[in-house]
């Protein structure tokens, strides 16, 4: 078997809240898992069990205090937990895509331009980015009359589809998906499932969180329950831990 695209080795994370007398919120501990090319591993477990935190650590969005997160970059392997910011940015350009539930973009920029820009950042030529942006938006059922409008005024589901288009326009070998279908209707969920499966069959490694059982069943090659990794919360910290995770 070839080397996995991403390996979590005994990963642990807690938040220290300095503004709250420095209390420590353990989020996850001893998390170990791996995802290979052509696999889609879905993280299972209750809300607040640290699933999102794992994805954020893999993307370098959260710091990883314990353990290692090894991402394969061609012949090289980069430990995201120890990498320099520049190395992480380089991975984000070429190797790893992250799609969250929330769209965060410069206000007043048109939807198609937002998606296109993500393609160009991911190394596509301007023309190719333009074509692919249009293809993706069309496939995701976003009416063409909306393409020149900034997504800020769109519904939650529309924004989420813009976000998916942005995350998928550049074809990177590792995809991190944090509930990308959370506010989509059944028809749009089906399109997203199709897109995810296409990527996987083309050889991408996918690590995701999907709330809907139907989506999970349709995309997962493995399910990993993070409850087993979960740090033991001190009594009374459960609710705060949920908010932070």
């Amino acid at each position: 078997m070839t080397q996995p695209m991403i390996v979590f080795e005994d990963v642990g994370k807690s938040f220290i809240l300095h503004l709250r007398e420095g209390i420590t919120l353990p989020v996850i501990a001893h998390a170990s898992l791996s995802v290979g090319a052509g696999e889609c591993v879905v993280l299972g477990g209750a809300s607040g069990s640290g699933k999102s935190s794992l994805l954020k650590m893999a993307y370098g969005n959260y710091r990883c205090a314990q353990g290692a997160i090894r991402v394969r970059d061609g012949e090289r392997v980069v430990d995201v937990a120890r990498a320099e910011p520049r190395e992480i940015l380089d991975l984000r350009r070429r190797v790893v895509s992250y799609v969250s539930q929330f769209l965060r973009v410069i206000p007043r920029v048109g939807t198609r331009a937002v998606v296109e820009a993500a393609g160009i950042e991911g190394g596509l030529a301007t023309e190719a980015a333009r074509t692919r942006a249009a293809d993706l938006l069309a496939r995701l059922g976003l009416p063409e009359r909306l393409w020149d409008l900034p997504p800020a005024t769109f519904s939650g589901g529309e924004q989420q589809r813009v976000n998916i288009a942005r995350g998928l326009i550049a074809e990177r070998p590792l995809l991190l998906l944090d509930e990308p279908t959370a506010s989509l209707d059944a028809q749009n969920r089906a399109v997203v499932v199709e897109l995810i499966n296409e990527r996987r069959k083309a050889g991408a490694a996918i690590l995701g969180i999907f709330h809907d059982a139907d989506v999970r069943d349709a995309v997962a090659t493995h399910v990993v329950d993070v409850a087993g990794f979960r740090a033991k919360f001190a009594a009374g910290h459960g609710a705060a831990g949920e908010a932070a995770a």
Partner: protein
Amino acid sequence: MSQAPLLRAEGLTKRYGARLACDGVGFDLHPGEVLAVVGESGSGKSTLLGLIAGETAADGGSVSYRMRDGTVRDLAELGAAERRALMRTDWGFVRQDAAQGLRMSVSAGGNVGERLMGVGARHYAEIRAAALDWLARVEIAADRIDDPPTRFSGGMRQRLQIARNLVTAPRLVLMDEPTSGLDVSVQARLLDTIRGLVAELGLAVLIVTHDLAVARLLSHRILVMRGGRVIETGLTDQVLDDPQAAYTQLLVSSVLAA
């Protein structure tokens, strides 16, 4: 990944009387990288920019820069003429107050053309064509080319400053609060222009801002300053989403969400 940085600051220190405005600040800046320096008033972020630009004399530390010919030079050791040449060609400086970055009595076209003439351009038609091209790139209408910036709105003045600075194809641009003082509706478009140009031209940018949202949208890395010291540094989204230092946690949690 192992390429030498474009700019390296080491141990930069500046005292004003007993007060340390900048206390041993260092960082590397690589080509194509946008580094935001954030902090509140009095944090030392503007002093730092002045030290980098050579407008403020440092009491300690050094700034080195990889010149176009590949040699790395300590900026303190450049002669006055060399230093001016560097500022006019390979560096840009977009200031918060456009009146400091522009010549207010000279036409928009003249403001852009002047930088080109500074690097030896003499052909009037070519200079005017380059000015027109740059005005278009920052979305200033061609028919405003003969108007002086005194007749421009705040947002247009900032756009003109950007055109003036970028016309000589610099590799490093310093920005001091480029969007503050503008109406928010104008800010967003300016941010989009800056982000597009920075990505397209592969510029290295050192941007000072008190606005964490601006830092998030424009920068790759962030340096949080307080009392002249670097409190925390790292990937922009990591520092803003998972701040480690108590002060950064306070800053991030104090931002009003609209």
